[in-house]
């Protein structure tokens, strides 16, 4: 398994250094960036990890970084740090889907726990994503006619009804069903329904 990396982004060099030391001492792999631009330029989102970012920075702040990450296919969880947490910026950050929002002077346990949680979430999201990707690859093998048949099957219709609706022979419908089951490697209609839902494709829901 690839090791998760904690990306620390802060314009305050001293804090950046201290933070990376603590993370290393606590057994995390840490990388530091002195600005949001530097971090975004590295394109590290395809590797597992999380981002610990200072809310207030010149040029691009933490919220900007969060928004920029949101546009990538595999966004890393963002954990905000700030010198002083005022209500307005807290609300904005949480609304943007922040993993957590902590003051820089927060207790070590709270901070490290938040980092662990962020990494775990990233891990989980990554697994879900790869599972879904695999499902999508399987569904991609199904032909257009088979997809139509599948639609009807998932609605709970009988072979005879489907054949009537599509204007094909009942035996042909059976052949399509068998082919679908084989391609998606499922044995029952119940398993087929569950798989379709997991794939998260709206057409099958």
């Amino acid at each position: 398994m690839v090791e998760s990396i904690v990306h620390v982004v802060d314009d305050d060099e001293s804090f950046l250094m201290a933070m990376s030391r603590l993370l290393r001492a606590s057994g995390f792999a840490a990388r530091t960036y002195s600005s949001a631009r530097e971090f975004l330029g590295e394109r590290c989102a395809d590797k597992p990890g999380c981002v610990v970012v200072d809310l207030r920075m010149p040029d691009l702040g933490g919220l900007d970084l969060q928004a920029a990450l949101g546009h990538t296919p595999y966004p890393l969880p963002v954990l905000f740090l700030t010198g002083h947490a005022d209500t307005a910026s807290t609300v904005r950050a949480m609304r943007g889907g922040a993993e957590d929002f902590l003051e820089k002077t927060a207790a070590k346990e709270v901070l490290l726990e938040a980092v662990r949680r962020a990494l775990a979430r990233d891990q989980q999201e990554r697994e879900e994503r790869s599972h879904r990707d695999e499902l999508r690859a399987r569904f991609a093998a199904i032909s257009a006619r088979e997809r139509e048949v599948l639609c009807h099957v998932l609605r709970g219709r009988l072979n005879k009804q489907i054949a009537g609706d599509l204007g094909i022979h009942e035996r042909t419908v059976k052949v399509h069903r068998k082919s679908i089951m084989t391609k998606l490697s499922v044995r029952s209609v119940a398993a087929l329904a569950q798989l379709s839902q997991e794939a998260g494709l709206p057409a099958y829901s």
Partner: protein
Amino acid sequence: MSLVTVVWSMIAAACLTLAAVHLPVWWRNREARATLAFSLAAICTAALAMCELAMLKASTPAAYAEAQRWMNLPVALLLLALAGFAHHYLDAGLRWLAITAISLRLLSLVINFAVGESGNFLHTVSLHAVPLLGEQVSMAVGVRNPWRVIGQFAVFLLMLYFIAASVRAWRRSRRVAAVLVGGSLTFFMVASLARAFVVSWWGGEVPSTVSLFALGVVAVMGYALSADLLRAKQLVVELSEREREADLAADAASLGTWTSDIVRGTLQPSKKLRELFGFASDDRLDAEQLAQRVHVDDRAAFRDRLSQAARRRGEYQSEFRLVLPDGQLRWITALGRVDFDAKGKPLRSRGACIDITARKAAEQEMLRLRQDIAHVGRVSVMGQISAALAHEINQPLGAILRNAEAAALFMQHESPDLQEISAILEDIRKDDQRASAVIDRIRALLRHGEVAMTTLNVRSVLGDVATLLWPDAAARHVALELTVPGDIPAVRGDQVQVQQVLLNLILNGMDSLEGVSDRPRSVTVTARCEGPASVEISVTDSGRGIDARYVGRLFEPFFTTKAKGIGMGLSISRGIIEAHGGRLWAENQAVGATFRFTLPVAS
């Protein structure tokens, strides 16, 4: 007794009386040279009258010649006295003319005693009897002295001198003196010349009556002097009246006044002055005793002012404190003047003191209030940026915390990396200093105290404020920029107050950017030289600009367009800048607004 004897004797007696009256006047006031000249003229006229009487009554040519020779002495002195009177009384110019005339007349006096029987005759042959006042008096006939023309020329010159003196007095608006004194002197000379021509050149038989004319002149001169005496008396009365008025005014205004004779070292204080300095009304006072009552801290400056005024400037003004015997403190402002004599030596000093304790107290109360308001203003500004401040101070505190936690974890390793740990400790030390620097800055800003004018480095003053506001600017997405040219001179001011003004203006600029998203959001602080004596600092934002309706009211106290503002920021700022001797004003730009203020360059 004959009438001539009576009249001539009375002339002599009258003149001597006048001299006896006026000579003591001159004695007491040596400056009155005109009085001396007048007394001399009166004495000469008396002597002249006696000699002339001897001439008129002479029974032999020899007696006549003797009397005439001696008569020339008082005549010459009389002319000298008259010239002197004209010089001092009419303030005539042309001194050289008078000196020439008198010199010629004295030369003719020498000839009078050296050549022939007198200045008039080389040899008197016989006496003629001519009528005068109803009796027969003597008149000589003989060989005339040819040198007599010198004396006559001297009289002619004197006549010109008197005419000139009269004209001058007339032009100076002393019309009565010009006509009376100048006119009679001139007439006397004209009459003398006329008689000389008639008698000595045409051979006319006119008896000598110089005394009569001289008496007329002396009478006119005496009248003029007496009139002056009367006028002087009147002036004394008016003066004492004025003095009483001045005293009354001084009392009404609670002014303590004094006159001090610098030459004799005496001091005459008014009653009120004694009261002000806390002395009883019968204490003997001198300048030193007054100086002793002045507060120790002010005494040197007080003496300095006095001696400076005595040396050259003449006028002085000074503010100082008195410590009264009961320990009470009193503020005094003194205004004085030193009078000098013609040679520039200080003669006396005069002045007035007034109690300004109440005014001073009010001023100090005002200053205290102003400082209080400024303090409140600063505190409210600090409130506005407190979030930013907490952020700034938590930055180093957070770093310290993380470093300490990391160090603690490193220490748990079996073989701790001591190099790493000592680097951590060094970083902790640096961050600790950083945190305390932030606290110092805040404390300096919140300092509640007196104004301390010092020489300020523009770059560091602006830099400190920018550092303080920078986190706030970042949080509000405002680009805060600083432009300070390298050759900007140092300015004079109170660092805290100047920074307060900058804080105010920059925060206002950032506030005006609220809701602006269609253009860069920036606040730019720029310093530049404005002439050789002042530096202009401007704060420009790209915000909404100043609403035209409010331009005139911007600097009024309690005027605000902000929901949470108290409206004191700009009012206090302007007060501060004006107290620094600068100006603060605002102007709209094509985009946004600029606030500018000036500060004097430190000398």
